[in-house]
């Protein structure tokens, strides 16, 4: 995918020199000047042609019309599935709100008040409720470098799934209470993985820049990310390849609710001694 660049300097200068000479050339017959001018223009056209060709070549080469068409169809399928995903998430958010309202009404029954309060607390911890509080905003983006040296691996210049995981891990270690990446709340069943160079969070496609919204002690979170003992690999890429990584302390950050499924089909809870009260 390297873009062949014809070194412009030398040749074009020579051509321009000759062109200039042709234009300014010693006075001869009018006809001759025109012919020289034409020659110069022809040369210019050739140079432009070469450059345009080089330009054309630097585009990713299509592997033929059929695969290109298939890619287009696949891209449309992805779009359709993503629209469906967004719609299902909206439905889940709506249904959880409806259920929450009904369960809140149930809480009015004195014998269920305690159970209901415990459920609210459990939902809060699980991340199905949007929260806000003091925290930080972290931005992680692909390299701002425009030209990748041919000897370098381009993969070094983009953000990878494991880097997002490392940042999330460092944030939890620093006492974060809630984290989202590009609107996807990080919850117990969340996985962050890549397909090719596309990163999926909660099975939702994301793209750079990656914005982390985090509720927690701003100073502690910020210090943990800045600590040279943490995120060494990521900081190495920032230094060597220009990945963009920045943090900002905020008085109030809003972290959205998780709107995916919480599939518990195989695990059974064993009543813990800590369970207080309950249904009678």
């Amino acid at each position, binding site marked *: 995918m390297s873009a062949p660049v014809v070194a412009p300097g030398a040749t074009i200068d020579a051509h321009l020199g000759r062109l*200039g000479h042709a234009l300014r050339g010693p006075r001869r017959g009018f006809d001759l000047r025109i012919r020289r001018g034409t020659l110069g223009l022809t040369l210019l056209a050739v140079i432009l042609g070469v450059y345009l060709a080089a330009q054309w070549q630097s585009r990713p080469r299509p592997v033929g019309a059929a695969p290109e068409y298939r890619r287009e169809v696949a891209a449309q399928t992805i779009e359709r599935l993503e629209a469906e995903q967004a719609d299902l998430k909206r439905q889940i958010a709506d249904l959880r709100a409806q259920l929450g*309202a009904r369960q809140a009404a149930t809480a009015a029954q004195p014998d269920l008040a305690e159970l209901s309060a415990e459920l609210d607390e*459990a939902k809060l911890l699980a991340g199905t409720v949007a929260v806000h509080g003091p925290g930080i905003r972290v931005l992680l983006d692909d390299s701002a470098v425009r030209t990748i040296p041919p000897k370098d691996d381009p993969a070094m210049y983009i953000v990878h799934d494991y880097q997002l995981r490392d940042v999330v891990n460092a944030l939890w270690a620093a006492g974060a209470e809630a984290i989202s990446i590009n609107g996807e709340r990080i919850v117990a069943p969340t996985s962050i993985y890549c397909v090719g160079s596309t990163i999926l969070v909660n099975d939702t496609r994301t793209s750079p820049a990656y914005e982390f919204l985090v*509720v927690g002690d701003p100073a502690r979170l910020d210090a943990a990310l800045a600590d040279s003992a943490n995120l060494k690999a990521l900081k190495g890429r920032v230094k060597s390849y220009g990945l963009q990584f920045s943090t900002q302390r905020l008085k109030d950050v809003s972290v959205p609710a998780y709107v995916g499924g919480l599939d518990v089909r195989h695990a059974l809870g064993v009543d813990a001694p800590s369970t207080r009260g309950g249904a009678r």
Partner: protein
Amino acid sequence: MKVRSAQLLLSAVCLVFGVLLMVQFRTQGKIAKQLVAESSADQAQIIANLYDANVALRKEVDRLERQVRENDETSGAARAAQLAADLQKFRIVNGSVPAVGPGVELSVDAEIRPEDIQDLINELRNAGAEALALNGQRLTVRSAVTSDHGAVVVNNRKLIAPYVFSAVGAPDTLERALTRKGGLVSYLQTTYPEGRFSVSRSDKLTLPVAETTSAFQLAVPDNKTG
């Protein structure tokens, strides 16, 4: 007159040149973006993942609809039972109750790095683990994997190899995810050739309650929905 036309021509050449260089420059700048463009194989994988994810989301919608309906149709004791069941589910997710169920155990007898442990946990979650424990410690969403003088630390406790991951969930799916060729475990086996990695299915795993499931100190709910 001749000089002026020459200047004009040179200006035009310079202009064209500038434009060409700019285009070239921009093409180069987009290299990272081109890398991000998905290959056909990646597209197929993304479609498969999205399809599975949507099936799971639809199940959640069905489940929630049923729950809302049941809530409307029932009262008293039945409603209390429903609340209790919902609470139990969230407690399993949060690790605030012990969890029992079928699943797999992955044993790693190698001096792997904290990052590898993080990746293995991520892999198990991706394969649909409903509850996780590592060396007998329940993992929650907020469990961080750090290191202390080379030792792996999870939930502020030093662990030593072998690292035994217990995952409750669909045993088939979990086993397949862990043993597939080109998967994380086979990659780690290549990285740590001396290490011993084994996956075993279990009909009944018992995971303890998480030691720390501290309530939020700073995060407050936006509203009462959810």
